[in-house]
């Protein structure tokens, strides 16, 4: 089977709408088909990665739990917009998974070398 570079772009917050969850489902489905999958978190999407989430407070499953399934699918390539993190006064130590910080130019390069970007 052809192996393509799937880049799943996560731009939405983890709660209040379900785009974040659906994006992770797509990433895991692509990985199950032995595709090369990377995730890129931009804007409010970086909030998905915050550790010690408590979804129960709003009767939702914790999003952190869903993200923690990614390594089981061998999805270990996680990129994050460093500007978006800075603007929200967050650092890599606030996150639940190991990430690679990217600046604007590096994000552009990542988009160029991926076969396509799936935008959520």
């Amino acid at each position, binding site marked *: *089977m*052809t192996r*393509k570079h*799937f880049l799943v772009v996560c731009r939405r917050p983890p709660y209040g709408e*379900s*785009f974040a969850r*659906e994006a992770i*489902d*797509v990433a895991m*489905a*692509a990985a*199950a*088909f032995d*595709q090369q999958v990377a995730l890129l978190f931009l804007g409010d999407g970086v909030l998905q990665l915050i550790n010690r989430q408590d979804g129960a407070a709003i009767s939702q499953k914790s999003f952190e739990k869903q993200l923690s399934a990614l390594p089981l699918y061998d999805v270990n390539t996680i990129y994050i917009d460093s500007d978006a993190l800075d603007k929200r006064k967050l650092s890599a130590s606030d996150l639940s998974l190991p990430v690679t910080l990217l600046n604007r130019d590096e994000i552009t390069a990542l988009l160029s070398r991926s*076969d*396509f*970007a*799936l*935008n*959520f």
Partner: protein
Amino acid sequence: MYRNDCSTLASSYRTFNYCDTMTTFALMVLGAPASSQCPQTALTFARAAIDAGHRVLRVFFFHDGVHCGSNLLVPPADQHSVAMHWSELAAQQNIDLVVCVASALKRGIVDAAESRRYDKAANNLHAGFELSGLGQWVDACINADRVVTFGP
């Protein structure tokens, strides 16, 4: 794709492909008719791509996009149902219209088989669409030259 002029975009693919073979597209629709422009934008894009000599392999309706496949939509009198437009184009051009089964069940879009399986009183998937899994989307991405997501 967010509020872009899709005709222009599809034309640019024609330019890009001017001396080459046709491009195949896989499209994802994430928004519902009536609340989002994106089902119409995706339809306009698909028509423009086909007019420019390209091919749409599969359209995958995901998230709220699954509502596009409902045969119970009643659009305002001066508008046609998006399901009808999609199914007409798909029948002419041999396009797969796939509605994500997981997204659909959560939102009350069921075909006859799922209706029986979950003991529901009715089914409402338009005849031009089929329910299937995310594997169909991954397969379309693998086999298409270009992938475009249409989100609200």
